[in-house]
């Protein structure tokens, strides 16, 4: 042992906090972003930092099964899903920008407010007597969840709504690893399989909507009422 366990923990906590901050910054960048392809890349970058958080927590808590979760995140959310979606964008020849319903400055203010809410909620989980990693990470996770929600409401294009749903899922993943240091392995496998299939299913659905309506604008889906 080179370092005392306490210092060890503190270092881990700092790394996790730094990464979590980056994840949050990327989430807010997504609120302000106007191009779909860049949107997809931001999502990939965010997922990458998420995987790094998972790996850090696995290292400092000696919880090897979280490495598997980190590896799956890289495989599914950093590589597979972004490639899938970029192909979809190419195939559908989307050139349009994202048009948010609420304009960007106000959206940013709302995202900031939601971050604050995230920190308030996370406080109720804070146990000073239980030193551990990821207290800040939980606050970020809840913020990601809330901002993901807001992004879903604030977007008109089908693909960007799905991306918002996926960032919401990123928030969940972060909550799961920072609250409980990972769920049992089989659950994680199930969740990742579901995310992958969901991304594919939604991709096909978007493609068909695009073909039928010649647009991905979901605000045109308004025939069914009452």
């Amino acid at each position, binding site marked *: 042992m080179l370092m005392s366990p306490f210092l060890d923990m503190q270092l881990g906590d700092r790394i996790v906090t730094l990464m979590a901050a980056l994840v949050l910054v990327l989430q807010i960048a997504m609120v302000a972003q106007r191009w779909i392809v860049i949107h997809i890349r931001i999502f990939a970058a965010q997922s990458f930092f998420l995987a790094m958080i998972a790996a850090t927590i696995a290292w400092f808590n000696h*919880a090897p099964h979280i490495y598997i979760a980190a590896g799956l995140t890289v495989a599914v959310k950093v590589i597979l899903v972004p490639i899938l979606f970029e192909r979809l964008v190419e195939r559908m020849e989307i050139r349009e920008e994202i048009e948010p319903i609420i304009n960007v400055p106000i959206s940013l203010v709302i995202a900031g407010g939601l971050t604050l809410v995230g920190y308030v909620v996370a406080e*109720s*989980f804070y146990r000073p007597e239980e030193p551990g990693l990821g207290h800040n990470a939980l606050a970020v996770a809840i913020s990601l*969840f809330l901002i993901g*929600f807001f992004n*879903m409401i604030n977007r008109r294009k*089908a693909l960007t*709504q799905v991306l918002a*749903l996926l960032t*919401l*899922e990123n928030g*969940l993943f972060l*909550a*799961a690893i920072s*609250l*409980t*240091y990972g*769920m*049992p*392995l*089989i*659950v994680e496998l*199930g*969740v990742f*399989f*579901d995310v992958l*299939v*969901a991304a594919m*299913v*939604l991709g*096909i*659905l978007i493609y*068909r*909507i695009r073909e*039928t*309506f010649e647009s991905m604008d*979901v605000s045109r*889906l*308004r*025939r*069914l009422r*009452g």
Partner: protein
Amino acid sequence: MEAANVAGFGVILLVAIALAVKVLAAGTVSFANGFFYADSLSALVILLTAAVALVCSTYSIGYLRDDQQSGDMGDDPAGAEQIAQLRMFYSLTPLLVFSMLFIAVANNLGVMWAAMEATTLASIFLVTFYGKVTSLEAAWKYAIIGGVGLSMALFGTVVAYYAGHSLPGSDSLSGLNWSVLAQHAAQLDKTSMRLAFVLILLGYGTKAGLAPMHTWKPDAYSEAPVPTAAILSTALLNCALYCLIRFYILTSRCLGPEYPRHLLLLFGLLSMGISVPFVLAQRNLRRLLAYSTIDHAGIMTIALGLAGPLGSLGLMLHMTFHTIAKSTLFLSAGNVYQHFRTDLFAKMKGGVMRAMPLTGVVLFMAMLAVIGMPPFSLFQSEFLILRAAFDGGHILTGVLFILFGTGIFTGVLVHLSGMILGPVDDTPVAARRPWRDGSLLTLAAALVLIGFWVPAPLFELIRGAARVVSGQ
């Protein structure tokens, strides 16, 4: 494909009956190291799911053959496109049913969640089966609202797992097992359980179609092929409520029944209340049925909130009776749609009984049953739930229950008479269809019979399930 489906579901029904018998004898069954776990509650849900799946798969043979003839599935009957579509239907339906069965036997709450997500993924392309503009819209709503709901449910599951993190063995695979958590429910972290239950209620409530997260339901039910809609509105509703019940048991053991009660009563009454105006103003038969399902989801949620021996018994009876009545209704609505080529009451001109005597009678009967008219069985279960409300001193709940129930009753009767008691016209009489009449008559017989006589083993199973819910 058709034969394989029916045979497969037949075998599954036999297995479900075997499981029910075993559970009746032994109380709980658990295998594969506790990975699978079944008590009376799971056995009842499995039995209902398997029965509905078998009846619907028999029905869908005739239904889809008619679709092929009538050009609903494209212009070229027996063309390559149609065969691909049929293949998709007959492989996604078993996938959907399999996921539902998995929900009911999975002990691990995370695995249960993954199976629930699988049901959504399996059914999205069943909703887009006809490839119409409206079915894409319905599927999109279904996928997105369902996706958000399920992510909340997953969050709730994570928080519930955290609530048990101080228990011994919580970091092993069994840490999220329901049987383990239920045993130590009193030691779960109380603050976390509060948050977890709200998230779970919102999450699985979305899948059950509780208001205000119900908006996907009428669209998905009216766009999906009728056998799929029947499965979604009965078996899948039961499964969503099943997940909710599992968490309800944990929460009420941890925090006492008061906390979940208020939330459940609120959402239940809201669902009943919201469906009243939509039922009254409805013009479309299958959408009417969807709002009726929302109403019944509300009734069952209220029953769960009231809990106690009486409320739980009412809940389990209602689940059983509603499954039979609503699947009968959807299947007869399918016959009506294919004959009249419309779901709109106005275009049927009251000719249903005359043009299709058999379907008309069954539809009429099942409609009366579903709005709680005696002597049909739903009257008994609703009466039990109402009694539980007044016994427990929830006067406001009871009064609103009666009020909303009356609204639905009136609305459905008005539409029903409009469909059936029309002027004489020249609508052609429908031909007999052996596959579909067979399944419809089976269900109708079950519906009539169960109003007067519930087989003793089934009633034992229902009572066992009610005991699981009330914890006595």
